[in-house]
């Protein structure tokens, strides 16, 4: 079974938690074993959103995940990038894992959005899904659907 790591950023972006649950569901649908790496506060949001761990079955603290991470440990890195620090974490995970990667880049401020996209583009060969988004997860959900469909081909 292929393994995917979903990397979450700071939980202050409202779209992050529902999209994390949704992306986990979609990746599991196409046969991935999914682990979500997050801060303790982002993990609490996931636990309340999915109280029986119906969707998100594997959760790991972002720092211990990073500490123990090994090259090619996952077949897919799926990173949420919506802050400068999230870019730095995504690029770091990308360089350690050296595996197929996609950055889900979103922000409500168009200049910041373009900056995060540029930072990911210049420092990785990762695919990028992006949208100007904050509260409304729909523009990102549509793009996540398209990306996951492309994984099935």
């Amino acid at each position, binding site marked *: 079974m292929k393994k995917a790591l979903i990397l979450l950023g700071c939980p202050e972006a409202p779209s992050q938690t529902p999209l994390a649950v949704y992306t986990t569901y979609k990746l599991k649908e196409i046969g991935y074993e999914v682990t979500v790496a997050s801060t303790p506060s982002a993990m609490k949001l996931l636990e309340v959103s999915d109280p029986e761990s119906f969707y998100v079955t594997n959760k790991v603290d972002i720092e211990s995940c990073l*500490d123990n991470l090994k090259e090619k440990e996952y077949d897919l890195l799926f990173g949420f990038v919506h802050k400068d620090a999230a870019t730095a974490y995504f690029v*770091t995970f990308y360089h350690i894992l050296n595996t197929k990667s996609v950055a889900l880049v979103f922000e409500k401020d168009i200049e910041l959005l373009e900056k995060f996209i540029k930072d990911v583009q210049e420092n990785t060969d990762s695919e990028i899904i992006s949208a100007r988004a904050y509260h409304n997860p729909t523009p990102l959900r549509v793009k996540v659907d398209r990306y996951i469909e492309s994984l099935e081909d």
Partner: protein
Amino acid sequence: MSFCLEQHLQQSEDYKILIKNTGFKEAKKVIEKHSSKKVYVNAGEKILGARIIGIPPIPIGINDDESKVTLPYTKPCHGTAVVEIPLEKDEIEKIKSSAIKD
């Protein structure tokens, strides 16, 4: 016992914050301006017991005379800080040996 950056920052006051809650690029500039001697390491390199986070090449300032290093410290919700910490010579040598360029 090896030096542990996380533990040092939590349990000691013997460090100086040069900037905090900033972006990685700004932090990189601060290190490069502050330090006459620098080494650069890869993202994810284990430095002082923790993986270093950022966009490579990541600068670490070296002050051999005062036995101090200056490095970025990133957390998901707090952005990047730059900290200067005192360090034993052998720990500084370990950092130098991890360098991808000077």
